């Protein structure tokens, strides 16, 4: 199949970027989106040009490294799919695809389609952990966890921190990411001792990083490759209010 690509090219974070057009020729339908870009990059390099920079690592949808917006959809609009797992058979011969980096003030463009997502790491550093020595593995049922909670915690723990939620949000908010991390630990007994401090710190770090606020459109949920539910943001809103009230009373 043959496609026309309109790709955001930007030399570095300080230079202005622009859209450039490339022809993607003889692309097999079985290729993944990133393999298609690899083929296009081969052509660009053979012609003496600079290849299109993009991030990828596992290419099996579990690492959260790949990140691009295709025709306005983070990860390309295929439900529950990272862009590395998106295949060219979902597109039609002759399609014109606009490919852009994640857009958010907290995600400055490093080069072309590569953005700096360290803000998410700093949110994790501010509280996305439990301060306990885990030691060796305990017996499976030594620490009882209600089935409902373990299921929900696992749903939240699926977050791979790719930042698609931020990219899809018109406010550049990382609330879905944040809520998944807060929800995951907050649902398990190991997360209880630091539950209130954690949500306060992580929300404050989120705001400090310059991420926006949730306006409840749930575009994040629609593009999340791990289909994290927006009801985790509900839980975050509740947890934050409870923690703030406790902090106000000096109980945190």
């Amino acid at each position: 199949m043959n496609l026309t690509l309109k790709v955001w090219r930007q030399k570095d974070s300080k230079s202005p970027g622009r859209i450039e057009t490339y022809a993607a020729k003889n692309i097999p339908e079985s290729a993944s989106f990133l393999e298609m870009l690899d083929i296009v990059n081969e052509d660009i390099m053979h012609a003496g040009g600079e290849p299109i920079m993009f991030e990828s690592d596992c290419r099996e949808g579990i690492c959260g490294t790949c990140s691009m917006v295709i025709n306005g959809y983070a990860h390309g609009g295929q439900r529950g799919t990272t862009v590395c797992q998106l295949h060219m058979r979902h597109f039609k011969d002759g399609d014109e695809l606009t490919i852009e980096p994640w857009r958010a003030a907290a995600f400055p463009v490093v080069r072309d389609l590569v953005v700096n997502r360290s803000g998410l790491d700093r949110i994790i550093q501010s509280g996305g952990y439990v301060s306990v020595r885990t030691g060796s593995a305990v017996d499976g049922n030594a620490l009882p966890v209600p089935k409902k909670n373990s299921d929900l915690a696992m749903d939240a723990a699926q977050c791979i921190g790719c930042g698609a939620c931020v990219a899809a949000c018109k406010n550049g908010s990382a609330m879905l990411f944040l809520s998944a991390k807060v929800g995951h630990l907050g649902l398990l007994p190991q997360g209880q001792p630091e539950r209130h401090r954690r949500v306060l710190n992580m929300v404050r770090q989120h705001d400090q990083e310059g991420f926006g606020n949730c306006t409840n459109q749930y575009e994040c949920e629609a593009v999340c490759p791990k289909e994290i539910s927006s009801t985790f943001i509900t839980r975050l809103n509740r947890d934050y209010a409870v923690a703030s009230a406790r902090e106000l009373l000096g109980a945190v």
Partner: protein
Amino acid sequence: MSTAAAADAPSMRAVPPNRLIAFYRSSIGKKWIVALTGLVMVGFVVVHLIGNLQIFLPPAYINAYAAKLKSLGPVLWLFRISLFAAFVLHVINTIQLSRMNRVAKGERYVKEATVQATVASRTMFYSGLILLAFIIFHILHFTLGWIPTENIHVMDYAPEAGNAKDPLLHNVWKMLVGGFRNPFVSVFYLVSMGLLCMHLSHGVESTVQTLGLRTKPLARPARYLSWGLGWAVFLGNAAIVLAILFGFIK
């Protein structure tokens, strides 16, 4: 908790100097304020509508109702001040949030697309701004009576509602009927109620979400409640305006 791990996490113990201000300034704190003040105003809008629907009864009812409200004195002022405070906080915080969000997004996409964001949710700021203008007009129109339309703010004898001590009562029935005879005024009210319907259809659901009540089983009912309330407020208010404009109430 091991001391080594705790030392790695000094931020876990950091407490802001003023905790109330920290909440007010935080993203979620502002959302809570917008949600709670919104809830106050939704409550007012519903009560306001129920009161006004008495226009479909003989004039005595709505005039007596208005007289009763006015007789509340300090309680009425308590309600007015609370409502005004909620209104001001709602407007200030939504404007602040919108500005923060615009900055947080930074450069926009060359090609924009949405999956499930409703039109109402994407136009909240604009519907809110027009509603702000409407509310100012509405207060000038009916509460203060500064907008000169036909028969406005008639402080005349409403015999049905009057009592011996205070026969000169606010004739609300006459004021409403006079006010909505003007097609320009009526159309502005109808458009504003349409925008209020949109604003509520996203706002009520958002309130349920922000207050942490939109759990998975409640997500769909919250949306229906939001749309239902928006439409009920629109249809109820539009019925009053249209009934007067087309002469069903005279």
